[in-house]
């Protein structure tokens, strides 16, 4: 299983966090869970970096946080996307999309060249 996991490229953690909180307010542990589940275990969030990243995004005004009760009745810090955060997410996601396509093309071309 270990070899199936990928290292997160630099700077992508912020993008993934933004995406993970885009649907509904969610707490830190759930963000980690969500990312892991959605990527089918390929992406494993380094939990030590998750909270500093959350705090950084909150300071930059991309995320907002409220203390709310969970289903189990405990208080947790729920993060949600701000308007500024949504814009950032769209811009970064589009950028990422373009980049991966471009990289895919380049890699495809290399195969074509060998034929």
């Amino acid at each position, binding site marked *: 299983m270990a070899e199936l996991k990928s290292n997160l490229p630099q700077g992508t953690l912020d993008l993934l966090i933004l995406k993970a909180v885009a649907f509904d307010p969610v*707490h*830190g*542990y759930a963000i980690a869970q969500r990312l892991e589940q959605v990527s089918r275990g390929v992406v494993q969030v*380094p*939990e*030590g*970096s998750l*909270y*500093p*990243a959350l*705090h*950084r995004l909150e*300071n930059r005004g991309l995320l907002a946080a409220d*203390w709310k009760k969970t289903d189990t009745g*405990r*208080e*947790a*810090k729920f993060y949600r996307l701000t308007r500024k955060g949504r814009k950032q997410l769209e811009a970064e996601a589009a950028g990422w999309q373009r980049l991966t396509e471009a990289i895919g093309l380049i890699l495809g071309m290399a195969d074509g060249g060998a034929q």
Partner: protein
Amino acid sequence: MNWWSRLWRRKRMEEQLEKELRFHLDQHAGDLMEHGHSVAEAQREARLALGGPEQVKEKCRDARGTRWAEELIQDTRYALRSFRQRPGFVAVTLLVLALGIGATTVMFAVINSVLLKPLPFPEPDRIVVVHGFDEHFGEFWGFSYPDFLDVSHASRSLALAAWTYGGGTISAPGKPEYVDGRLISAELFATLGVVPECGRAFRRDEDRPGAAPVAMISYALWQRRFAGERSAVGKRLIYDGKTYVITGVAPAGFQLSGEADVFTPLGRSTDLRMQNRGARFIQVVARLARGITLTQAQAEVTLISRHLARQYPASNAGLSLRLHPLLQDVVKDVRGTLWLLLSAVGVVLLIACVNIAGLFLTRAISRERELAMRVALGAGRGRLVRQCITESGVLGLCGGLLGIFAAAVSVRPFITFWPHGLPRADEIHIDWRVLCFAAGVSVLCGLFFGLTPALRVPMHGLEQALRAGGRTISGRSQRMQAAFVVSEITLAFVLLIAAGMLVHTLLALSVLNPGFNAHNVLTGRFALSPKTLANPSAIRAAWQDVLDRARRLPGVEFAALADIIPMREGENVLMYRATPNPLPPYQEPFALASSVSPDYLKVMGIPLLEGRFFTEFDREGTAPVVVIDENLAQHAFGQRAVVGKRLWIPDMGPAPVQIVGVVGHVRHWGLAGDDQSRVHDQMYYPFAQVPVPLLHFFSSVMSITLRTRTSPLSIVEPLQRELRGASGDQALYEVRSMERLVSASLDQQRFLSLLFGIFAALALLLACVGLYGVIAYLTAQRTSEFGVRMAIGASVRDIMRLVLWHSLKMAIAGVAAGIVAALAAGRMLQHVVEGMRPVNVETVAVMIALLMTSALLASFVPARRASLIDPATTLRQE
């Protein structure tokens, strides 16, 4: 949340962080337990996944962006805690800093308001003064009225306005009072851009001969006599015996070379000099036209003056005009002194800072081990440097705050101390520029004495520092401490030389003979009753009556009249020659001419060297006579025996006047200024021979002088009562004892000697404290070395000599380094201070001796302590 509120709610944020991470761990552990892990195993697993909670927290704190501020608070707290451990050190440092920064701030506040801030007029940099300039005599302020009209008419680049001094008795409304006045041209207020408080300034048609008499009054007079009522405009004012209609009130604080209460139009003055192109008694200010530079305007007036010189060669040949910005003209007498004092104060502050830096350095050396330990434990170098600087910065800022407080309290008293009044004194305030200056200086001071210890934070050779720290010191830091002390001594030496020269000058000047006997002499300007001024014979009778009444007062020995008084403002300089034929232009000699009554010589105690002085028989109608001083006799005839010879004085008419006596020279221009003055020759002529047309003018400038048997100031009141006159409207004003005038002529020198004396004493004290500190520290470091020396046979005296020689070497180095700067400071003083003597060997020798003695005294205690070491004890400690 901005960073400030994040910083403010630090504690709550810490709690929330803890709660958030705990929730994460519990949640994770809960999930793991659902998958069948045991409680302990799940908790362990969860913690491993998250990583060290403290590290995560630290990273989260970094993410907050308030790190630097938190550390600043931490460092400040640490600094305050460490100050509390050393209250003595902190108190002394703060006191020294507060004094240094306070004094510097006071000087800067004065310079800021007097020299740097623009004058309180609209577009003040466009206002200029116009001076006459003569190739032979240099620059002078005077203008003649015909020249003013011509230049004013011809100039396109300047709007000119003229004024001159006046004054008279106001007899109604209210009781009679002599006031200063100014005669002004109609354009003056508009040129300066000054708007009257109420009413209006003069119109052009009121500023010409024969116009109806109108006057403006000062704000102070308006308050005093009209209770500040607007209805004052249009009321009558009886001034100098004539009735004027008040057109307006000048704004509060309006000055023309000093305060005046009544302004009248210059153009309708009946003064005979108004028609005389050679009578230069008018001052001219002007405003540059829009888009015209000073250079362009200067070029234009140069052309105009050349034209006038061609047209009126008798009066204007060789005469040109010079323009200067008004501000420069207003402050030219104090500019040098102010900068000089600021630099002196700055030097004291610098010494104080070096001193404190030395103390900080000593402490840093003893803390070297602590710092090395912290670096070894992982503290960043930047963090430690910041901490050192925070500590000194906090001290600097506290000192600065105290300094600003001290400056705010002392700036007013300082200004009143200024001899002969500081121009623009009422504009001096502590404003934001001064506050910025003080804050900047405090921060610089803080950085200055924090930087040296901060740069000593060890980076390499930690092991060595840890092992040796605090016990042995490197040659580098020893040299550094010595350099600090040497530079303190250098700066102190410069101030000592300056103070020594000033005191030397003051002593040399104060033993000069003024040329008269100032003891028990009273002088005062006097205004006759305006009623008598219309009639020449009434004027003469009135003056005679004044003299007779004064002489009859108990305590009065002699009484005399004089138009100019030695060492007081006011002068009359006349051209003379010893032959009937005119000399080539610019070679005519000038003499100070004084119109006096016969007893003047006895009142002043001026020695009669040859011939006689005036008597009652030298009066109108008899042969005109003069008495000259020894300088004029020597200059004109090359000898003293000149009684019976004649002088030609164009201003007194074409006929020669006869010399009847020679008297001693009087230092008219002050004890300090007389030797450098341009006019060295003096002459006296009888007031009784002043021609009738000039009598009215002369009466407005005459003073009375009295020789008394008792203290002269004790008879001022009976004198005033006695001389009030039949109608009670005669006034005695500007009453001074001659002793006060003589002493006032050295006020600047005395003031600077006192200030520099204080600065030099402070500097010497600080340098000695610094020297003591370093010597004490170094000898303490060398205890074991001295122990060894004594063990192998050095005597107590040897050790003492060793230590004293060490301190003397630093003093000598300081003097050697300072001698050039001290000579330069002496040059500067000679430019600024009137009568300043050049640097002399005696002063330098005395100051070097003083410095060396102080250095030896300062190091005596440490030397003694070093010599009392018990070699056995110190060697055992090793």
